[in-house]
């Protein structure tokens, strides 16, 4: 038993090394002057914070950072609200067109978003949404993924629980908020972090829809450091990437217990 534990820990530590090595390299590169990026030391020989200073001084990095937080936060809240609601309705109500609706929503997962950019742009242009925050975030306000995920969870809530509440005279909105949501609250925190992350990293659409430098999101802004003909400024890209990972790690550290308790697709019966 004891030795089994030790083996487990050893395996986990070995895995951690593999998982962390590229990441540590990224962080280490951000602390090196450009000439030194190929030196093999994990701890930089000529340690410098120049890259960090340059990232902030030569670009609107802080603004981009805040834009990314704003966009990711708003889309996450919206996705959590709507996807949970739609998932709940599809799972717990029978109404005309239910399965068609679900299949349609699921099918939206099967078209690469790269191909939706042209019609989205046409639409945004007609409606005057280009080059605005709303333009960046409207395609992400609801996701097929979230509806699918939440439907799976909502199905596991016993019907009796909901019916009992109905007999008690609760209205449907209260039943959703007070009975259903608390049951799947952990799953929602998982959906929350996944959504936040995918919007935090979103690149192509924000790039296309934004023209003003001050509206760029972080990945879009960072892409301006690697510009084909001008040499890619890898030291600056690594720096930007290092900074941009910090909030995500912090969020995960705080939410991990919730998340792991949350993503349970079995049980409850």
């Amino acid at each position: 038993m004891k030795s089994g534990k030790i083996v487990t820990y050893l395996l986990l530590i070995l895995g951690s090394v593999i998982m962390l090595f590229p990441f540590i390299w990224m962080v280490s590169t951000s602390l090196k002057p450009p000439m030194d990026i190929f030196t093999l030391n994990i701890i930089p020989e000529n340690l410098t914070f120049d890259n960090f200073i340059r990232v902030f001084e030569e670009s609107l990095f802080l603004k981009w950072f805040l834009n990314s937080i704003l966009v990711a936060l708003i889309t996450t809240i919206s996705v959590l609200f709507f996807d949970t609601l739609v998932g709940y309705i599809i799972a717990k109500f029978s109404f005309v067109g239910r399965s068609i609706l679900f299949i349609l929503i699921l099918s939206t997962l099967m078209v690469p978003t790269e191909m939706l950019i042209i019609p989205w742009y046409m639409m945004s242009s007609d409606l005057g949404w280009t080059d605005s925050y709303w333009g960046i975030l409207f395609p992400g306000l609801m996701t097929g993924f979230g509806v699918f995920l939440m439907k799976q969870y909502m199905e596991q809530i016993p019907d009796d629980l909901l019916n009992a509440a109905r007999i008690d005279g609760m209205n449907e909105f209260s039943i959703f908020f007070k009975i259903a949501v608390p049951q799947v609250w952990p799953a929602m925190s998982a959906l929350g972090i996944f959504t936040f992350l995918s919007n935090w990293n979103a690149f192509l659409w924000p790039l296309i829809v934004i023209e003003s430098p001050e509206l760029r999101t972080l990945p879009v802004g960072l892409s301006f450091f690697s510009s084909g003909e001008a040499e890619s400024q890898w030291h600056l890209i690594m720096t930007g990437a290092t900074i941009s990972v910090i909030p995500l790690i912090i969020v995960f550290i705080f939410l991990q217990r919730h998340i792991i308790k949350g993503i349970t697709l079995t049980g409850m019966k």
Partner: protein
Amino acid sequence: MTNKTSTSNKQTKEQKVSLFQKIRGNHKHQQYLFVYICLLLPIIFFLGIRILPTLFTFNVGFRDWNLLSSGPHPFVGLENYVALIKDEVFIKSVVNTIVYIVFGVFGQLLFGIIVALLLHKINRFVGFFRVIYFIPYVTSIVAISWVFQWILMGNGVINDLLINLGLPPQPFLNSPDQAIYVIIGAMIWQAIGFQMVLFLAGLENIPQMLYEAADIDGATPWQKFWHVTVPLLNPTIVFSAVIGTINFIQVSFTQVMNMSVDGSGGPLNSTITVVVYIYQLAFRQFDLGLASAATVLLFLFILALTLFQMKVLTRKFDY
């Protein structure tokens, strides 16, 4: 589906109970109202933002549409589809996509389960390890792709290691035979954290008493794994496989664009995927017609695959 029938069964039973009938009538009304009010915005959203643009794409697939030209875009029937089927690169991209899915999804499920099982066995530093294994998932793909190139290049650390072990150095990303597996490896590396979270949650929910019962029956750890853990993890596995596949097809785009030696699925198209090719057709060659036709084919492919996965994976472990 089974859920639906059980709900209606329940409802027919309830209908017999006369006491409930009046209240139910009221409720029925309120429920319909609730359903349609709540679905109003989502239906508008999914129709307007997702379905209509998709139909637009499907329509463009039947046209000769140069993206830089403002029209007219003549209808050409199935010409784009015929051109695609004759196109070696497209066929290559389909084959590659299947390789990516088979190895990539299997790999991330396997390692996800392994890490989750290991983490489930220990009780100290669990949170610490979780964070470590989750870090790759939140790291910028663009930045980390360059780090991988660096690690794997001819003079990189991995080749240093191979030489020190007395093995020949490998070309990795420069080789048309190896590059695709290297990229799959990087994708698995990045996705383990995501799968780990899903599986940890699944494991947490398996009642301890099932294992105790198995112990009493004298089951070996291996038997316990196959007869208790795997069946009870089945819903997680199905979900992970479906979502992993869909994600893989979409996410592979960024990885391939950033890790392949020429930034577009090389060398010699050995790492190109359907999505990367669609992107190139539309935005590098400005042939939106061909790109849209390829999108339709991809759509049908994923649809078939999803249905297949849901069927096979749920049946296999039925208990």
